[in-house]
C-alpha cells in the first residue's frame, strides 16, 4: 500500500503539490486524472522516490520513502515497475536488452530463459519480431509498449503507469487497458494509472482521483465519479471548455 500524506512540492516559485494526500489500497488500481501540467507525473515520481517532497510523507509498505538511503531505495524499488510518460527506453540497448534489463541483472536465469520471457512480455503488449531493433527505429506507440513490457518484466508488486494509452490507436489502447486489468487480477498488483483517457480510467480504475491545484479534490469509484455533482470534476470528465477550470492560469 502507498500512502501519501500532506505532501508539498515546488519547483522555483511554482507550487506543484500543496498538501496533497492520497491512499493507494493494496491490490487495487487507482487512476489519477487531471489537467496537463497539473503535476501527475511529478506525483508518480514521488511514489518511487525519484523526487523528494518539500514536506509531508510518502509511505510505501509503511516506510517513508523520502527518508530512505540509496541502498534501501534500491531494495524497495525492486518491488516497483514504472512506465514513464516518455517510455524512457535506453537508446544504446536493443528492445530485448531493454525488456530483459532487470531480468539479466537481478535474476540468475539463463540467457535462453530470459529470451523466452522477453518474447512473452512483448507479446503481452502486442509486439513481435522487434527484439533486435534499437528504440530509435520504433514508433512512439511501440516505444510506449516496449516501456510497458520492460516495466512488467519482473512481475512487480506495484506498477506505476504514466499515460499508458497515450499515442496508441483505439484498438491497441483497449489491449493495454485489458492488460492492466488482467495484471491486477492475476498477479494481484497494486497499480497507479495516470491518464487523460476517460474510457481507460473507467475501465481499469477501482478508484479514480482527480488532481487539481496541487491537491486531490475528489475521489471515488468510476460510477461515483460519473454521477458526481462537483462542477470541476464534471467539467474535466466531460471535456468542456466552460466551467470552474479556467483555460489560462
Amino acid at each position, binding site marked *: 500500500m502507498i500512502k501519501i500524506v500532506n505532501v508539498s512540492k515546488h519547483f522555483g516559485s511554482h507550487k506543484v503539490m500543496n498538501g496533497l494526500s492520497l491512499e493507494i489500497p493494496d491490490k487495487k488500481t487507482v487512476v489519477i486524472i487531471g489537467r496537463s501540467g497539473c503535476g501527475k507525473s511529478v506525483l508518480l*515520481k514521488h511514489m*518511487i522516490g*525519484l523526487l523528494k517532497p518539500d514536506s509531508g510523507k510518502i509511505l510505501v509498505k509503511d516506510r517513508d520513502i523520502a527518508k530512505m538511503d540509496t541502498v534501501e531505495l534500491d531494495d524497495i524499488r525492486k518491488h*516497483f515497475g514504472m512506465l514513464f510518460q*516518455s517510455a*524512457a*527506453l*535506453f537508446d*544504446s540497448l536493443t528492445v530485448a536488452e531493454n525488456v530483459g534489463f*532487470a531480468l539479466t541483472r537481478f535474476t540468475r536465469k539463463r540467457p535462453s530463459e530470459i529470451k523466452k520471457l522477453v518474447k512473452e512480455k512483448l507479446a503481452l503488449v502486442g509486439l513481435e519480431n522487434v527484439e533486435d531493433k534499437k528504440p530509435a527505429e520504433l514508433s512512439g506507440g511501440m516505444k510506449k509498449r516496449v516501456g510497458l513490457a520492460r516495466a512488467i518484466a519482473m512481475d512487480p508488486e506495484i506498477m506505476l503507469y504514466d499515460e499508458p494509452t497515450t499515442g496508441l490507436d483505439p484498438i491497441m489502447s483497449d489491449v493495454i487497458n485489458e492488460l492492466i486489468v488482467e495484471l491486477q487480477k492475476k498477479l494481484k498488483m497494486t497499480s497507479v494509472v495516470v491518464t487523460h483517457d476517460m474510457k481507460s480510467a473507467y475501465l481499469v480504475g477501482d478508484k479514480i482521483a482527480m488532481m487539481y491545484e496541487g491537491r486531490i479534490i475528489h475521489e471515488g469509484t468510476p460510477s461515483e465519479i460519473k454521477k458526481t455533482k462537483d462542477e470541476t470534476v464534471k467539467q474535466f470528465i466531460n471535456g468542456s471548455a466552460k466551467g470552474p477550470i479556467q483555460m489560462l492560469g
Partner: protein
Amino acid sequence: MIQNSFEYIGRKVTGFLFEAGRLTLLFGQVFYWTFKKPSEIKSVFEQMVIIGNKSLAVVTITSLSTGMILALQTGTAIERKISGAANMLGGIVSLALTRELAPVLIGLVMAGKIGSAIAAEIGTMAVTEQVDALKTMATNPVKYLAVPRFIAALVMLPVLTIYADLLGTLGGLFISLNIFDGTSGGYFESLNMYMRLDDVFKGIFKTVFFGAIIAVVGCHKGFETEGGAEGVGKSTTASVVISSMLILVTDYILTAFLW
C-alpha cells in the same frame, strides 16, 4: 548598484563552490564504486574500445605533427648557431614529448573528444528520463554509467600517450632525416643520451589523472543536464572547458611534484 555587484559576485562564488563540491562528491562516489564491487566488466571493455576507436585518428595526427613541428622548430633555431643540429634532435624531441607535450596534448584532445561525448551521452539520458529509469530499476547510475567510463579512461589515456610518444618521436626522426640531413643512428643516440626511462613513466603517470578528470567531469556535467537538447549542448561545452582547465592546473601541480 554596489550591492547588486556584490550579490552578483557572491552568487558566482557560491555557485562555483557548490559545483566544485558536487564534482568532488561524484568523484568520491565513482572511486568508491570502482573498488567496492567491480561489476560491469563487459561495459568497461566496451567503453575502452569506444575510446580507442574514437580517438585513434586524432591522437595519430596530433602526436605525429607535434613531433615534426618540434623537430622543425628546434632544429632551425639550433642551426643558426651550431651546424649538425640533427644529431641533437632525438634528445630534444623525445624529452619534450614524453615529459610534457604528449601527456598534456593528449589530455586536451581527449577532453574535447571523449569528455564531450560522455557529457552528451549521459546528458541525453538525463533529459530523456533514462537515468531516472535506471534508478527505478534499482540500478545506481554512478555504478552503471560512470564507473565503466572512468576505468576505461584511466586505462586508455596512458595507452594512447605511449602511442603518441612513439609516433611523435618517429615524426621527429622523419624531419631530422629529411630536413636536416641527420642519421637515424645519431637521432637515437642523442635520444639515449638525454632521456631517462623515468621521464617516460612520469609523463604517462600524469595522464592517469587526466583520464580521471575527463571521465568524472563528463559524467558530472551529464548527470546535471537539464532542459532538453539545449541543455545537452551547454553541458557538453562546459565539460570540455572545465576538464581542460583542470588538466592544465593538475599538470602544473604534478610536474612540480614529480620532477
